[in-house]
């Protein structure tokens, strides 16, 4: 190998390494901006909206509708855990009705939604809608309605994409993985 080829080879190797380092840094940066599951999860969101119940007729503002959506989701989760699927289905549906009203006005998820001076809440209408569709799909699957279940999961995926675009979360990524696997398995 002559000196010229040696230098060309060295430059290529160094540039390849530096490129790979840059990619790693970018990836690491992306990973660090993802909100971990312990900071953004369903239990925390439900806890923040616990208390005075909001009914559809009493909701006057986007924040009321969000509260109503979360509270109905909490009821749905309870029924889903105890396998009372017909009741769970009703609450998942009403929860999504609340969230769809929210999404008409605010379609971005946020881990630090500013409610008022010095007070923030977890605001995830997209992700919660997606989680509702995921579970509605599971209910349909348990009844043997595989095609309808797939339809619910595909809808869930579109909301997850919107959620991850506005606020990347570990929870969102996990849901995405789960739904993708469900769609592949069916």
């Amino acid at each position, binding site marked *: 190998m002559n000196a010229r080829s040696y230098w060309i080879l060295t430059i290529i190797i160094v540039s390849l390494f530096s490129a790979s380092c840059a990619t790693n840094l970018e990836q690491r940066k992306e990973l660090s901006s993802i909100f971990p599951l312990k900071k953004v999860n369903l239990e925390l969101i439900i806890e923040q909206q616990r208390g005075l119940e909001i009914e559809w007729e009493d909701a*006057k503002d986007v924040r009321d509708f969000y509260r109503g959506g979360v509270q109905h989701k909490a009821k749905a989760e309870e029924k889903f855990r105890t396998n009372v699927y017909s009741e769970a289905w009703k609450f998942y549906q009403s929860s999504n009705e609340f969230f769809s009203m929210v999404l008409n006005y605010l379609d971005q998820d946020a881990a630090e939604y500013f409610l008022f001076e010095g007070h923030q809440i977890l605001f995830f209408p997209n992700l919660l809608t997606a989680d509702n569709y995921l579970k509605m799909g599971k209910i349909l699957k348990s009844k043997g309605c595989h095609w309808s279940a797939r339809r619910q999961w595909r809808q869930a995926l579109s909301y997850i994409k919107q959620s991850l675009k506005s606020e990347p979360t570990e929870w969102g990524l996990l849901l995405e993985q789960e739904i993708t696997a469900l769609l592949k398995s069916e």
Partner: protein
Amino acid sequence: MKKIKQIILTSIILWTMLLINTWANNAWAQKSNVPNFFQSYTNPKLAPDFTLHDLEGNLVNIRDYRGKVVLLNFWATWCPHCRQEAPLLEKLYNRTKDITILRINAKESKETILKFLEKNPSKITVLLDEKNKVGNLFGVWVHPTSFLIDSEGKIRYRAMGVIDWDSPQVGTVIEKLLEEAKK
């Protein structure tokens, strides 16, 4: 000349429409007996249970006020509308002792509130909600927000923003709750 006539005619029509609209709004408010700044509830629910410290260090539980009409007012010292509303609440407090007024301060320290009250004295009980736990329970997202709770402990009305608590309209609503409490 024709143009002037047209302008006069248009303005007369607009003024008439405005007057009809105002009259219709007043008629609706009188008929419903509830001012439109009060939000009533379809199925009034029990107020969430809570216990908070007042500025003297006493524990106050909302359940201790069962049998009484309670006005809960969520506020903060940094909130200009709350400062604007404070004297109006004070007027109501001075006018009647039949209604219990509790002012719940959101996320501020006792020292901050005491400093504020030195300049803006008040006789109304102030409760400390330093972590906004009670604010969360009531779903408060704007200050001031007030809730009128009946003698059974049920939330009957919500009002957001500055309310003239000394106005006859508000007085009618409070009187109605007080009458219910006597029955």
